[in-house]
C-alpha cells in the first residue's frame, strides 16, 4: 500500500512541478459564473445529473452554457491551474463533471474526446488540491480508462503516465470502502477491462452497501450475469435486494425461460433456478434475523409479503412454486406462533392456508368481454396479454387445463378492492370440449382477502378435471374495482404431486447442500 501511495503522490508531484508555482491570475468572468453555478447547483451536480435536475431555471442553464464554453476554450495546463487556483477542489470537480456531461452529448468523436480530455485535466487540478477525494479520484480513473491510449493534445500527461489506474482504484476504495458510487465505478472499470470476477465482487459490494435503488447502475450490473452462479455472486441474499432484483432478472431472462418451457431447452444451472435459490436463502436469512431478535416479526412478514406481491407482475416467472410455498408456509408459521399481530386478516390467513399445500399448474389463459352466454360460448384468443377489470359486465377469465391435471383452487390476484364484489355474482363453468359448459359449484366458500398490495379472490373447487374452465362475473354491473393483467391475475392450483417440477427439485437439492 505504501508503494501505491508513493506512486500516486509521485504522479501528482510531477504534475505540480511541471506547472511551477503559477502566479495567481484574476478570475475570469467565466470562473465567477462557474463558481456561482457550483454554489447554486451543487446538489444537482453531485447527484450526477446536472442537465436535467432543474430544467426550468433558465438562468442556471444559461450560466452553465457560458461557463462550459469558457471551460473548453484552448488553454494550457498551466493556465487551467491558474484559473482554478482560487476555487475549491469541489468546485473544480464540478467543472470537470460539467464538461464530462457535455462530452456525452457530443456527436463528433473528436469533439467528445476533446471534452473528455478537458474534463480529465480538470479532475487532475481538483486532485492536486485534494488528493484524498475518492470520488474525484475514481472519476479521473474512469475517464482515463475510457480515453485509453488517446493522447490529449496540449495537455500535461505526467500524472497519467506515472499513475497506474488500477492502483488509483485500489486507493479510492481503501479510502472509502463503503461508498457505493466508488465501488460501482470500480466495478464498471473491472467489467470494461474484462475482469468479470472482480466486477461481480465489486457490484456485490455495491448492492450490499447501497440503500435503495439506483436504476442508472442496474443495466451495467445485469450485463455481468451470464450464469446462475453469477446471480448468486452478484445479488446479496437479503431483503429488499432480492425482491428488486428478482423482477429485474426475470425481465432479462424472459426469452430464455420461454425457450426452456416451449422447446424444452436445458434448465440445468439456469438463472431462474439460481433466483429461486437466492429467494429461499433470503427468506431463511430473514428468519434467522427474526430469531436473533434483530428484526421484528412485522418486518419479517413485510419482507415475505413483498416477495409474494412481486408476483403480481409475472406470477410464475418471478416466484417459482417452491418459493411461493415457502413464503406461504413461513407466513402461516408466524401466524401460528402469534408473536405479533401481523396485520393479516383471518380471510388472508385462510387463503394462504388453502393454497399452502397445493402446487400451481401451468395453464393457457384467455379472457372474454361481455360473455353474456357463458354456458355456451367457447374460450378463444388464447394467451392474450391484457389488462382487465374483472368486475364489469359479464367478464370471463378462463383457462385450458392440461390432460391428467385436476383443479383444486382457482385464484384471482389483482389490484384494487374486492369489497363491492359479491361472491354470489361469480359463476364457475367447466367443459370437456369448449362447447358444452356445466356449472361448477365452489367446494367451499369463495374468500376475498388482501395480501400486501394485492387483492385475492380464492375459489376452491372439488378436484375437477374439466379441460376448459371459466370464471364469469355474472352481472351487468360495471363496478371496475378489481383489476389485473390476465396472465398474472389468474392462477390455478392442484393437488401436490410427488413428481414436483424439476426446478423445485433442483432448488431443494441446492438448498440442502
Amino acid at each position: 500500500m505504501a508503494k501505491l501511495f508513493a506512486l500516486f503522490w509521485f504522479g501528482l508531484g510531477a504534475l505540480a512541478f511541471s506547472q511551477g508555482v503559477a502566479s495567481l491570475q484574476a478570475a475570469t468572468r467565466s470562473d465567477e459564473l462557474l463558481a456561482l453555478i457550483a454554489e447554486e447547483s451543487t446538489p444537482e451536480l453531485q447527484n450526477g445529473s446536472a442537465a436535467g435536475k432543474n430544467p426550468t431555471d433558465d438562468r442556471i442553464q444559461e450560466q452553465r452554457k457560458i461557463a462550459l464554453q469558457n471551460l473548453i476554450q484552448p488553454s494550457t495546463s498551466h493556465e487551467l491551474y491558474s484559473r482554478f487556483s482560487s476555487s475549491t477542489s469541489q468546485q473544480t470537480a464540478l467543472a470537470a463533471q460539467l464538461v464530462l456531461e457535455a462530452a456525452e452529448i457530443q456527436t463528433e468523436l473528436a469533439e467528445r474526446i476533446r471534452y473528455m480530455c478537458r474534463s480529465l485535466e480538470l479532475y487532475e487540478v481538483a486532485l492536486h488540491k485534494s488528493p484524498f477525494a475518492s470520488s474525484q479520484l475514481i472519476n479521473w480513473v474512469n475517464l482515463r480508462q475510457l480515453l485509453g491510449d488517446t493522447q490529449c493534445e496540449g495537455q500535461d500527461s505526467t500524472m497519467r503516465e506515472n499513475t497506474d489506474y488500477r492502483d488509483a482504484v485500489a486507493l479510492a476504495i481503501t479510502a472509502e470502502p463503503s461508498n457505493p458510487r466508488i465501488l460501482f465505478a470500480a466495478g464498471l472499470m473491472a467489467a470494461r477491462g474484462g475482469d468479470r470476477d472482480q466486477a461481480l465482487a465489486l457490484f456485490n459490494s455495491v448492492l450490499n452497501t447501497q440503500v435503495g435503488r439506483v436504476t442508472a447502475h442496474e443495466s451495467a450490473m445485469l450485463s455481468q450475469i451470464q450464469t446462475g452462479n453469477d446471480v448468486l455472486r452478484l445479488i446479496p441474499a437479503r431483503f429488499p435486494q432480492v425482491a428488486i432484483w428478482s423482477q429485474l432478472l426475470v425481465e432479462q431472462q424472459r426469452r430464455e425461460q420461454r425457450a426452456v418451457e416451449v422447446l424444452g431447452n436445458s434448465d440445468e444451472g439456469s438463472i431462474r433456478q439460481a433466483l429461486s435459490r437466492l429467494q429461499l436463502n433470503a427468506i431463511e436469512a430473514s428468519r434467522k434475523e427474526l430469531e436473533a431478535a434483530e428484526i421484528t416479526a412485522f418486518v419479517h412478514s413485510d419482507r415475505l409479503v413483498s416477495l409474494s406481491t412481486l408476483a403480481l407482475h409475472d406470477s410464475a416467472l418471478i416466484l417459482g412454486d417452491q418459493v411461493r410455498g415457502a413464503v406461504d408456509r413461513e407466513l402461516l408459521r408466524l401466524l401460528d406462533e402469534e408473536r405479533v399481530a401481523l396485520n393479516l386478516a383471518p380471510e388472508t390467513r385462510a387463503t394462504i392456508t388453502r393454497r399452502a399445500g397445493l402446487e400451481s399448474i401451468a395453464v393457457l389463459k384467455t379472457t372474454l368481454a361481455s360473455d353474456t352466454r357463458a354456458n355456451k360460448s367457447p374460450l378463444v384468443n388464447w394467451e392474450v396479454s391484457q389488462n382487465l377489470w374483472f368486475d364489469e359486465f359479464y367478464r370471463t377469465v378462463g383457462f385450458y387445463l392440461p390432460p391428467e391435471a385436476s383443479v383444486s383452487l382457482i385464484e384471482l390476484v389483482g389490484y384494487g378492492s374486492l369489497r363491492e364484489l359479491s361472491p354470489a355474482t361469480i359463476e364457475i363453468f367447466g367443459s370437456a370440449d369448449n362447447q358444452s359448459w356445466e356449472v361448477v359449484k365452489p367446494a367451499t366458500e369463495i374468500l376475498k382477502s388482501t395480501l400486501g398490495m394485492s387483492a385475492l379472490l380464492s375459489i376452491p373447487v372439488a378436484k375437477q378435471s374439466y379441460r376448459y374452465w371459466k370464471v364469469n362475473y355474472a352481472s351487468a354491473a360495471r363496478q371496475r374495482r378489481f383489476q389485473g393483467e390476465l396472465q398474472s391475475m389468474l392462477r390455478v392450483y392442484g393437488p401436490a404431486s410427488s413428481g414436483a417440477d424439476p426446478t423445485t427439485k433442483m432448488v431443494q437439492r441446492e438448498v440442502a447442500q
Partner: protein
Amino acid sequence: MKATVFILAILCFTSTGQVVHAAPSPAEFVLSIGVRDYPLERNALNASDAGALVIQRAVSTALVENSNKTGSSASEPDHAIHMRLADKLEVSADYKRWAFRVLSSAQHSNGQAVDGIDVVASVERCRALGQLPHVESISHRRVDPHNGRHAEEWVDFTLNLPVSRADSLPIVHEFSNQLAQCPIFSGTALKGFGADFGYAANIVGPGDYMIDDVRGSREIRLTKVSSSLAPASSPAALILRAFPSDSAALATLRSGGIDLFVGAGAEVVALASRDETLAIAECQGFTVIKRHDLQFSCLPQLNLRGVAYPQR
C-alpha cells in the same frame, strides 16, 4: 461465401398495438363459406378437408410462400422464394445452411410477437408430421440490439443434402416448397395445448384471422385481427358453415346464404354449371362453386385476401 437474399415480400403484419378482434360493422364484408360436415373432433390443422384448408389459410402463415414461378429457380433456387414471416434469408454456398430473419413486426392473433422460438416449435411440429424430411437440425438465436437497431430473431436450418451442389438443387427446391406448407404458430400455445392444439378454437397463429366463435359442428366464425395488413376490401370476418349434404349447400348458395361452397361433389357441380349466377373454380384440389361476381383467388394457394365483391 454466403448468398444473401433480400426479398421484401407481402408484409402482412404491423408491429404495435393491442390485438383486439371486433365484430365487423354492417358495412364490412363477411364472407360465408359452405363446406361439408365439419365435426369438431377433427383437428383443423392436421385434416385435409375443405373446411380445414380454409382454417389453415386463415389462422396462420409460413416463413415463406409457394411461388408458381419456375423460370430460373432450377439454377437459382433463392429466386423462387417469397418471404412471408421472414424478411431476410442467408444461404450458404453449398445450400446446407439457411438462416431466416424473422420479420420483426410479425404478431400472433393475440398480439404477442412472433419470434424464433415460435418458428422452431412450429417447424418441429411439421417435422414430427414428416413434412420436412431434409431438415437435419433447426435452432433459433437472438442478435442483440446494436447501432440503434432492434433485436433480431434468427432461425437457422441445417439441411441434409448430397455432396454435389447440382444434386442438391432439386432437394433445395423441394425444401422451400415444404417450408411454405409449414404453418407457424405460437410456441406457447403449441406446448400448452399439446395434442389438443388445432381442435376447435385451440389455435394461436400469425394469420389474418382468429377463431372467434365455434357453434357446435355447424358453424365456425373467424374475425380479422386488427394487426392484419390485408386490404380493406378483404373479408372482415369468415363464417364457415357445415352442411349435411352438397345439395343443401348448393341450395343455400343459390339463396344467398353463403358466398361460396368449397369441396363440391360432381353432381352439384353439374347443376351449378347450368346456373349463370354461379361460377366454378378449382383450388388446391377442391372444386369451388361461388357466386358469379365474387372475386376469388387461388394461385398458387387459397388467398383469402383476394376474395372480394368488386362491384359492391
